[in-house]
Structure formats: structure tokens, C-alpha cells
């Protein structure tokens, strides 16, 4: 155990560990000080931080661009919610079905693409296409109430029921915080593993990786399956937090784009980039809203414009994302951190 921990944290500068510890403590303590609104914003940040890490495995580590990750969110959400609504099966048991369902969907896409050498832009289009198929399919699936929407029974707030995920937003906050931390640890472990190095080799030059004897088909499939399975967990939390699902909203391409903005801004392929990106985008967007409000300016759509400006700035000034730049500035130069 000690060896595993030493390997996980080995190489991270002492200053990095301290900063990480302080951030974690601040996040653990946040609900004690944050009001309901700030807590909701933090939940959104953690949701995007977690899901951004899941997406990053596919794109950042293995170099496979997915523009349809809303598919896995939706599959996870719908599977767990439908099992709960129809059979009273709790979300944690539902998760045992939701994750394989999403992973299978990922495997299907991966098999189609990698078996027939569909890569790059065409792979991205395939991911969009399958997400769109799912949206249209769920629109017509009467078992999940089609386009009329699937509603979960009303949440009760008298006490937190962790088993059935019914309770106060604070409970969801800590679940997502735990998931984000575990995802960070898991991603670091993956990145430091033999498979992680194979993924990076594939990302940098697939032909060269194949020439070096790496089974690129297998390792890309594993990346897709892990990413899809991880993403579906966020879908389960989404379903039980918001308590309603509409195919038009859950599977919509705009949701897939939202997922990838954080990692792109934070730094694709880095461990901390998706988390930082989620904080930057959601945090600054809310600050912008508050500032405009304070100035008495009512400007619907300002956030979307802000997102666009952020992306432009990052692409032009920091093409590797904010985290690699920030890491150098604060003296954390360990590779992959």
C-alpha cells in the first residue's frame, strides 16, 4: 500500500502537494461557509471537473477526440433513473447496470471506428452521430417516457438518504467531490501505468506506436470504455440531483461541447487541467454575471460570449491550456501533473 501511495505522489514537488492539500481542505470545508447559491455553483464546477477528467482519458491521454460524450451522461442517467422509477432499484445498484451500458456503447463506437481505421475528424463525427441517434431513439422510447420526459419522484430533504440519493445538495456536493478526487488519483495512476505510456505513444504518433509493437486497437478501446464508464457515473448523479430527464436536453450536442470546454481551457492531456478549466469557466462566468448584475446591466447570452472569448484567448495565447502555463509560474514542473 505504502508503495502504491509513494508511486502515486512520487515526483510531485512538495509545494504541489501542499497546494493540493490546501485546495482539498478548502473544498471539504466549503459547505460550512458557502450559501445555497455558491454551493450549487460548486456542484456544477465539480460535475464538469469530474466529467472533464473522464473525457480527458480519451482525448488527452489516448488522443481520440470525442464530441459526443453527452451520450454516456445520458445513458448513465436514463439507465439508473429508469431502474429506480420502474423497479425501485437504488442508484448505486443502478450504477452497476449504467456503467456497463455506457461502456458497451463506448465499445461499440470504438470497435466501429478503430476496426475500420476511422480516425481524427471522422471519429469525432461518429461520436456526434451516435449521440444524436441516442437522442432521437430516447425521444421515441416509451419505457423512458420519450420526449415527454422522465421524472423521478420528489426528493425529500428531511434527512439525507445516501442509498437512494435523495437529500440535500450538500450530500451531492460531497459525492461529486469524492468522485473528482478519486478520478484525479485514478487518472494519475493510469497515466503512470504501462497503459498510460502506451496511450501517450498512440496520441503522439499512432503509426510509430504500432511499429513499436503496441496493440493500438486494444489500448484505444480500453481508453474509450474507461472514459464512457466514468462519464456514466456523472449521468447517474445528474439524474438524481435534477430529477428530470429530457432527451432533447441530456443528449444535445451543446452538452457534449460543454463537457470539453473545461479540459480545453485547463489543458488537454494534463491531470489538473480539466479541474482548473471547470473552475475557470464556471467560476468566472458566475463572477461575470454578478459583475454585470452589480452594474445594472441585463445582458442575456453574455456567458456564451465570455466562453467564446476564453476559448479564443486560450487558443491564441496558451494553446496548451492554462494549467501548463500556471504550473511553470508556480514552480510545479513535474511532467503530467
Amino acid at each position: 500500500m505504502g508503495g502504491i501511495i509513494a508511486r502515486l505522489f512520487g515526483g510531485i514537488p512538495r509545494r504541489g502537494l501542499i497546494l493540493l492539500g490546501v485546495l482539498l481542505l478548502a473544498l471539504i470545508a466549503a459547505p460550512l461557509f458557502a450559501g445555497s447559491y455558491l454551493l450549487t455553483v460548486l456542484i456544477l464546477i465539480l460535475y464538469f471537473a469530474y466529467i472533464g477528467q473522464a473525457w480527458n482519458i480519451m482525448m488527452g491521454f489516448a488522443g481520440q477526440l470525442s464530441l459526443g460524450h453527452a451520450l454516456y451522461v445520458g445513458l448513465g442517467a436514463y439507465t439508473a433513473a429508469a431502474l429506480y422509477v420502474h423497479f425501485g432499484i437504488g442508484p448505486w445498484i443502478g450504477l452497476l447496470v449504467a456503467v456497463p451500458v455506457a461502456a458497451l456503447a463506448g465499445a461499440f463506437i470504438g470497435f466501429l471506428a478503430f476496426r475500420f481505421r476511422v480516425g481524427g475528424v471522422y471519429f469525432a463525427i461518429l461520436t456526434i452521430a451516435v449521440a444524436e441517434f441516442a437522442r432521437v431513439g430516447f425521444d421515441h422510447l416509451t419505457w423512458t417516457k420519450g420526449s415527454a420526459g422522465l421524472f423521478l419522484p420528489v426528493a425529500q430533504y428531511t434527512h439525507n438518504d445516501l442509498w437512494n440519493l435523495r437529500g440535500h445538495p450538500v450530500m451531492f456536493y460531497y459525492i461529486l467531490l469524492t468522485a473528482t478526487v478519486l478520478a484525479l488519483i485514478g487518472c494519475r495512476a493510469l497515466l503512470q501505468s504501462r497503459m498510460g505510456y502506451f496511450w501517450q505513444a498512440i496520441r503522439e504518433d499512432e503509426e510509430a506506436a504500432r511499429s513499436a509493437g503496441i496493440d493500438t486497437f486494444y489500448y484505444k478501446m480500453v481508453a474509450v470504455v474507461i472514459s464512457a464508464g466514468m462519464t456514466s457515473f456523472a449521468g447517474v448523479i445528474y439524474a438524481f440531483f435534477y430529477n428530470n430527464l429530457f432527451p432533447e436536453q441530456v443528449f444535445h450536442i451543446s452538452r457534449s461541447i460543454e463537457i470539453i470546454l473545461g479540459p480545453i481551457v485547463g489543458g488537454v492531456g494534463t491531470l489538473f487541467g480539466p479541474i482548473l478549466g471547470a473552475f475557470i469557466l464556471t467560476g468566472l462566468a458566475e463572477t461575470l454575471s454578478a459583475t454585470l448584475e452589480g452594474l445594472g446591466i441585463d445582458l442575456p447570452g453574455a456567458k456564451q460570449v465570455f466562453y467564446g472569448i476564453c476559448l479564443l484567448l486560450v487558443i491564441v495565447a496558451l494553446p496548451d491550456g492554462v494549467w501548463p502555463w500556471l504550473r511553470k509560474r508556480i514552480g510545479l514542473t513535474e511532467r503530467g501533473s
Partner: protein
Amino acid sequence: MSRKSQNSTRVSRRTFSAGLGAAGIVAGTAPFNIVRAQGTPLKVGVLLPRSGYQAGIGQDCQRGVDITAGILKDMGMPPLQLMNADTETNVEIARSRAEKLISEGAQLLVGAFDSGQSTAIAQVAEQKGIPYVINIAAAPPITEQGYKFVFRNFPTAGMILGGAFAAQKEIFAASSSVPKTAVFLHVNDTFGTAMKGGIGAVMPKFDMPYKIVETISYDPAARDLSVEISKAKATGADALIMVSRLNDAILLTRELVKQRWSPMAILSMGPGWYEDQYLKTLGKLSDGPLSFVPWYDPNKPLSKQLEAALAKAHAGVNLNTNHVYTFEALLVAADAYKRAGSTDPKALADAIRTTNITNNTSPGPGILFDAKGQNSSLKISGIQNRGGKLVTVAPKEAANAKAEWPLTPYDKRA
């Protein structure tokens, strides 16, 4: 994205409560408290999707918000301090905006046009014990959850369909000729597919005089609908039952003209055929179609007042569902505040539960809520396009014109 408007008095919830408490101690009488409360505006958070893909509708609803202050004042209602928030057509944002408005002191929430967003807001409202009046959202489960602070003054999907068939039957009863056959044309998007399912389930209960001889679906983004109209025409059906959007409604009308087919009636069960853009684009060709939608009663004095206020604020915009039901949600808030005499959320919720507003705009006896918080007395209207305007032809008690029947053939229009 909030904007505080209408009143310059800026009293925080905390200072207001403190002031009220002090006044209560000094006076020691409840009536005095009520007088104090009425002098302060009720803080109402208005949540609408003013950006994102529902932006057009959200902004249209906002027009209903913007014309409310003057009318409520004329009605002798207490002032509202409106706090506007944009939900960005996003469930998560709708929830966080509701939290934000409440944290900023909103004492009542109104919105949010969409069922998903309204459900997310309802959960926050219920958790915080803040009354929430839904302006537009048709999903039945919202008021089936046992909520105590959530109220809806808008028909559910089932009520809309049932009401549409009832209104059709009323029009047919007043006519010597009724359609015996119909073709059902619908868009194959979320809304169109849901309506198709709903019509299939509800129609048999109404013993309609016509039989649907063919159902044709089409893509809402289609640029050519000539084949669909050719197929419909070939059936020789008397009427067209439509579930469409704006662009395809215009395309279909042009195709009807081109193919020289004027059915006895065009009966629309959704948007498109009565929208301002349809009327402006097609001119005299827009006359005739009947739409069955949640609407307003043009004979009610308040509707005339609302029409005048909208015409003054936004010339050329016809009063529609978005304006009417958003206005009525704010009317419910003001009325409850007036009767409760307090900004206490529980008192406001209790007052809303006993709402009985007869001086309103929507068709039906008025605004009143059942035990679930649903206004189940709302009626669905039949409206017809006439010379660039819309007249109401059903239900009888809310009509200001008789249905022009059958449709004047397109080639015989001056």
C-alpha cells in the same frame, strides 16, 4: 444576469424583517403589520430562457413581464420588485439561478417556460419554502409530486389535447358541414412525436366526426414539402390536422397554394400557423387556419388592457400565450401578496392556494388552484387568422368571432 427594476426602494429582506418585527413590538397589532408589508414591494424572481435555443420564446415571455407593472398598478395591486434571471435554456443554470435569486432575497419565483427547467426550479423552491408560480410548462408530473409551494397556471399536455378536441367539436356543432376525413401531418421532432402519441391516445375519447386516413411525418428542417402535400392531396381528405413549427407551416401553405389544394379546414394543434411571422410572411394567404392552443379570452376587460399595453410597448406584436401566461403568473403573485399582507413565504403560499381571480385574461372561470397547485379550470381556445390578426372562435364563452368555415380557397382570395 439579474436586473432589479421597477422600484427604487432597495430594502434587503433582513432589514425589512427587522423593521417589521420592531413595528410589531411597538404597535402590538397584526393589522399594522399588514399595512407595513404592503408598502414594500414584493421581490419576485423571474426566470426565463432568454439565451440558448429557447431565447426567442424567453424574450417574448419577457415582453409580458415588461408590461406588467403599469397594469398591476391600475388594478390596485401592491408593487412588485422584479428580479430577472436568464436560465440559458439549461436545467442546471435554471436551478443555480433560482438559488441565486433566493439568496438575493426573492420572496417568490415565476417562470420558466420549459418543463425541465421548471422542475429544477420547483425543487429549489420546495426545499427553501419559497412559492413558485409556473407561467408555462405542460409536463403533468410537475404538479403530481406533492409540492406545497409550487403552482401552475397553465394547462397540462393532457388538458391541451382534450381541450383542443372539445373546441373543434364546438366549432363543428355550429356548422352545417364537417370534415369526414383528415390527413395528419406532423414534424418528427420531440414535440411533434409527443403530440402524435397524445393525439392517438386522446382522440378516440372524443368521438370526432372525422377519421384520420393518413399520417405523414416530415423533418422540421425540410426545405421542400411538395411530396408531403402531394401525398396528402391524393387522399382526397377534407381536412388537414397539423402539428408543425413556423418555417414548415409557411412552406406547407405555399405548397398548398402551388398545388391548388384548399382543404375544408386546416386544424393546427401547435405553433406555427398563428405566429406573427406566419401572418406577416403570407399576408392574405395566412387567413383561415384554425389553431387550438392555450390562449386568452379577448372579451375579458383585462385582456383588452394587456393588448393595449403590449401595442404601446411593442407595436406590431400580437398578444399571445407567452405574454398572457407570464403576465398572469405575476398577477397571481401580486394578488397573493395583497391578500397575505405579508412577504412571509408560507403566508404567500397559503394565499396562492386560495387564489380566486376572476378579473384575468386566460379563458375559463378564472385563476384558482386545486390541491395539487394546478389551475385545472383553464380552457383551450380555437383561434383563426383573419387579415393579419387573430380572432377567437372557441370556446363560445371566450369567442369574439364565428369561425369562417370552410376555408376560402387560396385561388379565390382577393
